[in-house]
């Protein structure tokens, strides 16, 4: 499973094949093989040693073709059919071809722009692919080297509107034209055993050629000259730059040293095989377009699917184990709580048993006993004596008043009248029950003695008594049932008449309702 992380990125040219071994993102080693019988055999042996490694092939050859196509924006099977038809039209005989999505137009139709790529006559590739197939290598994809150029410029952060990358690789001089950082065209010129001065002239001549080609294709115009980017890895880059600038080209050097350090690539290796930088890019970025037909990558996809299933199984197992562990831990924690509670319950039961065994003998339950005793106490608290005390206190300030009759009754009717029979009050009391809050009502018949005919004074005396009674907080309400002056009678006579004989005393009647809250005190 972990061997799956091993990746072999193969760089193929017309003459040779170079393997680079990667473990994760780390570069390990490289090997080169000539395109001949011995080279094929050695490559076969190499593959047999790395059966589980994923293989990716980068082709750097002159047999290549590029075409930008703007197609309607469709999806799903319609898109697949449209691209297949376009690719067939573009390169009918080629096995290695693809449509690489570039961008979506910002126009109203939102059409999709694709670069169609194909390897036109890849005879040099057949031997190597045969070895790969015979060894059942896990071929993940086949890519053209210029496909990596746009990732390279993004990495070194040089993205002018129109850029020509001019770089010497193992296959020869590679010139790749990018528009807005996207691949538009590329061309390889094989270079064999040229002197430095010849090499510089070759560079300049090739740049001029491609300049003319791009103009002819109306990809550039006179007013807008592209920028030529040279690699710092090329030994001749200064001389080339000088010569190109003399010709009027706008040049810049891409410093690749920092990038190499970042990826732990040796300077000597990259100087010898500049394409290593591109291979490293392929190891890091994923390119969705793939030149290889689906049959060739079938084993890899199957292996990929298998590994995904193993991964899913592992993830499910991990999640399941975590959930199970969590549930078990919660269960165990609850078990501890259960044990703790059981111990406490046993302790309480022991205390209860001990308490019960030492409980004093009782004829009835304690709660009932309490009710009986408190009821009996409550019965004894109810008496007219307290009412007599209240009236007695109030009479101290009114010695003229004499009580002729006093009635005290318990009732649940606040509006009860003095004339109501005792039987009625008994009935009411009984119906309301012992435990109802009964009102204590007092009826007082009083008279003012030594009446001298001054009714105003008599009224004042009666009112004083009422006021004194009200001062007692045990009194809830007082109603004067009859005043000393009886206003209900008809009074008739003449001022010329002699005054009638004055009565010796005048009578008044009060009804006093005592506060229920003060019942205990009454």
């Amino acid at each position, binding site marked *: 499973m972990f061997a799956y992380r091993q990746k072999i990125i193969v760089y193929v040219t017309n003459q040779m094949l170079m393997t680079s071994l990667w473990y994760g993102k780390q570069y390990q080693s490289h090997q080169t093989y000539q395109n001949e019988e011995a080279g094929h055999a050695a490559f076969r042996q190499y593959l047999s040693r790395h059966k589980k490694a994923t293989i990716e092939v980068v082709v750097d050859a002159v047999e290549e073709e590029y075409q930008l196509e703007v197609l309607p924006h469709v999806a799903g099977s319609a898109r697949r059919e449209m691209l297949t038809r376009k690719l067939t039209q573009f390169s009918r005989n080629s096995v290695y071809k693809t449509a690489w999505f570039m961008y979506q137009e910002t126009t109203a139709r939102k059409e999709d722009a694709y670069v169609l790529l194909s390897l036109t006559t890849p005879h040099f590739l057949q031997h190597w692919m045969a070895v790969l197939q015979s060894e059942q290598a896990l071929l993940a994809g086949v890519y053209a080297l210029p496909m990596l150029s746009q990732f390279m410029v993004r990495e070194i952060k040089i993205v002018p509107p129109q850029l020509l990358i001019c770089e010497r690789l193992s296959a020869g001089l590679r010139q790749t034209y990018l528009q807005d950082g996207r691949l538009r065209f590329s061309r390889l010129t094989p270079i064999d055993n040229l002197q430095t001065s010849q090499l510089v002239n070759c560079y300049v001549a090739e740049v001029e050629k491609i300049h003319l080609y791009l103009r002819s294709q109306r990809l550039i115009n006179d007013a807008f000259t592209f920028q030529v980017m040279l690699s710092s890895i090329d030994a001749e880059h200064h001389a080339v730059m000088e010569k190109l600038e003399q010709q009027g080209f706008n040049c810049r050097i891409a410093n690749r040293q920092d990038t190499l350090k970042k990826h732990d690539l040796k300077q000597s290796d990259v100087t010898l095989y500049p394409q290593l930088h591109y291979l490293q890019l392929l190891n890091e970025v994923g390119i969705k377009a793939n030149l290889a037909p689906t049959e060739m990558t079938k084993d890899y996809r199957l292996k990929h699917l298998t590994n995904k299933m193993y991964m899913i199984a592992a993830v499910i197992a991990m999640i399941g184990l975590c959930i199970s562990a969590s549930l078990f831990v919660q269960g165990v924690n609850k078990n501890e709580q259960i044990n703790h509670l059981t111990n406490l319950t046993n302790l*309480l039961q022991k205390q209860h048993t001990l308490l019960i065994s030492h409980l004093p003998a009782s004829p009835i339950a304690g709660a009932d006993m309490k009710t009986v005793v408190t009821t009996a106490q409550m019965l004894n608290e109810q008496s007219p004596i307290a009412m007599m005390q209240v009236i007695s206190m109030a009479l101290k300030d009114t010695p003229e008043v004499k009580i002729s009759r006093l009635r*005290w009754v318990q009732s649940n009717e606040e509006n009860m009248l003095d004339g109501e029979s005792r039987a009625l009050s008994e009935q009411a009391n009984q119906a309301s029950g012992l435990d109802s809050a009964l009102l204590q009502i007092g009826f007082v018949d009083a008279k003012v003695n030594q009446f001298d005919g001054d009714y105003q004074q008599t009224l004042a005396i009666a009112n004083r008594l009422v006021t004194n009674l009200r001062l007692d907080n045990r009194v809830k309400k007082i109603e004067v049932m009859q005043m000393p002056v009886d206003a209900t009678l008809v009074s008739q006579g003449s001022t010329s008449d002699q005054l009638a004989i004055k009565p010796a005393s005048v009578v008044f009647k009060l009804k006093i309702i005592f506060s229920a809250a003060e019942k205990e005190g009454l």
Partner: protein
Amino acid sequence: MIKPLMNLCRTLSLPVIGLLVIVIAICLLVGFASIYKSNQYLLLKRAEIAYSNARERLQLSMQEQHDIEQYLPHYQRLLQTGFIGEEQRHAWIARLHQVGMQHQLFNIDYKIGQQTAYDSKLMLDGYKMHRSAMTLRWGLLHEDDFIHLLSGLREGISPFIVRDCEIAQAPDAEINSQRLQENLIASCVIDWLTLRDASVKVDF
């Protein structure tokens, strides 16, 4: 066509079976763990209820002990005075005579009615309340005689409810402290209450 398909099946069979086995095993494991946790949860709830019940029982017993210790002497006194059990109307009449003699009261007329069931909300297991209404009428030299009788009746015998009392001047009476005469007439209705075993049927 068939051969690649068979190859595909052969290649994928192991991971598919492995995945299925893992999924089934994990489902079983999670299910078992879930059941274990649910059982423990139920057991915990039961243990909590048992603990709560035991604590409540202990508290009730402690309350019972407290009530018995506090109220048993009072209860025994009520048993002796006849508040609980058979009514002791002879004791009441005796007490009435005793109070009259003690405070030198005028003649006390009394009438005790038939014992009846008392409709009370007071709920006591196995007990039912009964009342016997007593009507009293007696002459007073002064108001203290009224107080002496009611207070005296409360001492040593069963509790009662005073329902209705009236004190009025005796007809044609003129207050003269030098003469022993009935200056006031008092009358009262009181309910003598008794608690009796509910199982004992009383015919009224």
